[in-house]
């Protein structure tokens, strides 16, 4: 096994076995579980107090209402006294009494709050429907007259649903992509810089550099950290897939997903293409920069400061992308989609929007790849000198010396 892989696996195993990695992996799952759990408990506890009871002397009327509307109705309460008791105990949002007097329907809603618009429309609709039926019966109209009176005006909305879904898919894809890059970048810039800076000036580096070349060691470190990133993404994909499988057992979510299948497909299509390569290469170039930044600090104790410049640069790209999401024809977007460190944010925006040719995408990728290769080579050559430095110069002085060297 080559020495680069020895370093890669040592770095990978050390990171994977750490408590911080476990917490980092479990963090989002714990957050989701907590959110879902709290929402579920909260929904269960408040569900009964949000229900409405339907009371009527006429069993037919009550049954008729319950047949049409079941959501949010407490069917167990059938009497006014029971309803009053439940309302007082805060187990009901209110109760509706439906009565008939001289062929006229009447509904009275008793509650501490005003009737919601949805419930109001529901009740109004039911009363109109029943009252109209009774009126027809009372008027003894012929079938033709009934048909004439049943005539209603037509209101139809014409919405270009396909375009709407496409635009929504673009927005969702854009946010998923840049948020993904940003989160990975922020998390791993710190980890990378600290991983490198913690070795800074220690004599173990002398032992290592008496065993392998600095370039080989540097590349091994970067590959180790990239493997950790890939592991985290793989765990999240598996977790997401398992979560999706579980969620599809819920009829409501299944209905929602089925209704928006084309949107889901569009989002997946927008992400799983060259854009994924941009995410990967973006993470690689920022990881290399973070490693360089870690090597520039004056001592291991300064490790926490090492990632700051990289995080700032990542934030700059992230926030710079915001104003342009609806103005993709701007010259700045076109230029930045070729500039390494920014192209990972800006080119995917253009790809998602379909305003860039394959040739332009490949040209930008070549620039990014070439920069990564040159950058890794340059840092690999500087790495030994930087890591063995034990002077008291600060990070920026080291950077200037590094350029002079």
């Amino acid at each position, binding site marked *: 096994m080559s*020495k680069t892989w*020895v370093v890669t696996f040592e770095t990978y195993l050390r990171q994977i076995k750490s408590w911080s990695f476990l917490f980092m992996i479990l963090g989002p799952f714990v957050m989701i579980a907590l959110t879902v759990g709290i929402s579920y408990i909260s929904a269960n506890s408040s569900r009964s107090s949000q229900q409405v009871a339907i009371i009527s002397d006429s069993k037919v009327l009550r049954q008729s209402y319950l047949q049409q509307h079941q959501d949010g109705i407490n069917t167990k309460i059938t009497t006014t006294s029971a309803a009053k008791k439940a309302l007082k105990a805060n187990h009901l949002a209110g109760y509706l009494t439906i009565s008939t007097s001289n062929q006229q329907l009447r509904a009275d809603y008793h509650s501490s709050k005003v009737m919601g618009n949805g419930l109001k429309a529901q009740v109004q609709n039911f009363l109109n429907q029943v009252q109209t039926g009774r009126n027809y019966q009372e008027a003894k109209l012929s079938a033709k007259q009934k048909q004439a009176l049943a005539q209603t005006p037509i209101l139809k909305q014409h919405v270009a649903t396909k375009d709407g879904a496409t635009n929504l898919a673009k927005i969702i894809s854009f946010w998923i992509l840049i948020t993904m890059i940003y989160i990975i970048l922020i998390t791993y810039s710190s980890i990378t810089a600290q991983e490198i800076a913690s070795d800074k000036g*220690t*004599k*173990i580096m*002398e032992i290592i*550099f*008496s*065993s392998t070349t600095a370039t080989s060691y540097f590349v091994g470190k970067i590959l180790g950290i990239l493997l950790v990133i890939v592991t985290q993404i793989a765990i999240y994909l598996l977790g997401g897939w398992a979560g999706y499988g579980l969620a599809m057992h819920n009829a409501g979510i299944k209905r929602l997903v089925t209704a928006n299948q084309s949107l889901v497909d569009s989002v997946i299509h927008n992400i799983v293409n060259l854009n994924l390569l941009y995410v990967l290469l973006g993470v690689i170039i920022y990881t290399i920069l973070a490693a360089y930044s870690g090597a520039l600090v004056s001592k291991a104790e300064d490790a926490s400061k090492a990632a700051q410049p990289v995080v700032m640069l990542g934030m700059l790209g992230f926030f710079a992308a915001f104003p342009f999401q609806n103005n993709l024809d701007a010259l700045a977007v076109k230029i930045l989609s070729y500039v390494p460190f920014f192209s990972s944010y800006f080119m995917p925006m253009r790809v998602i929007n379909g305003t860039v040719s394959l040739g332009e995408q490949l040209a930008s990728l070549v620039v990014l790849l070439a920069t990564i290769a040159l950058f890794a080579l340059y840092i690999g050559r500087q790495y030994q000198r930087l890591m063995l430095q034990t002077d008291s110069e600060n990070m920026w002085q080291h950077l200037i010396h590094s350029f002079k060297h």
Partner: protein
Amino acid sequence: MLSIQHISKEFGPVKALNDVSFDVPDGQILGLIGQNGAGKSTTFHSILNFIDYSGSIQWQGHTLSAEDFNHIGYLPEERSLMTKLTIEQQIVYLARLKGQPAKVIRPQIDDWLERFAVKGTRKSKINDLSKGNQQKVQLICTLIHQPDLLILDEPFSGLDPVNADLLKQAIVAAKERGAAIIFSSHDMEHVTAVCDQLVMLRKGNVALHGSLDDVREQFGKTELFVTTDWPAEQLRALPGVGSVTKRHGNRYVLHLTDAAAGPNIFDALTQGHYIEEFSQQPPTLDEIFRLKVGEDHV
């Protein structure tokens, strides 16, 4: 053979090494001595390509390549290990970086731990070991891959006499195996005990170079060990005596300004009678070291 020819190194205005040359043949031990800042670590860093230098350093007739790293064992002056690893993980990791398969190294670990009397098992965390035991583990990491070139920067520093003897045995064993060994030390007793030749650096220059006997002979037999009832003042008044150091009781060392004064002093002290001790010798390495360092302060 390690061959160092005319190497020089400057750090800004400071000349750390100035035209330093020496060879370390296979199966020989060279002691590199000198005061702090004399250029010992800079010499080691040059050999290991940690720094740029002018001149030539060759190993077995060629410039050191990445492949040669596999045959080097290096112990830096300050000890440092990856404290979160176990002894086994640390030894195996560093050995694999030397191109050794883990399956070859693992079976040897217990034997090495026993040889160096390390208080701990292969599963002990480095962090849980005492400083002395960490140092022994680092020595094992330096030696376990049977290097052909051993570079040891102050290897005896911090070791008690028992452990220093264990290290001496390991160094001699490596020499008998045919390894070229170069080590630095401030303790002349260790240098005298194991070195075939020595190089003394002073302000980046080679101040002394040769076998131990040759170096000592260069200074002549100017140390006279005597046991006599004569008082120190009377001894100091003898012709050719520079100074007198009292050892203990009536035992003295007379430091001669001229080695040829020995026979006359012998006659004066014995006057045809028995004398318990009279031995004329070259100065010890310790004295030579002090003498050379003293030149800087004159």
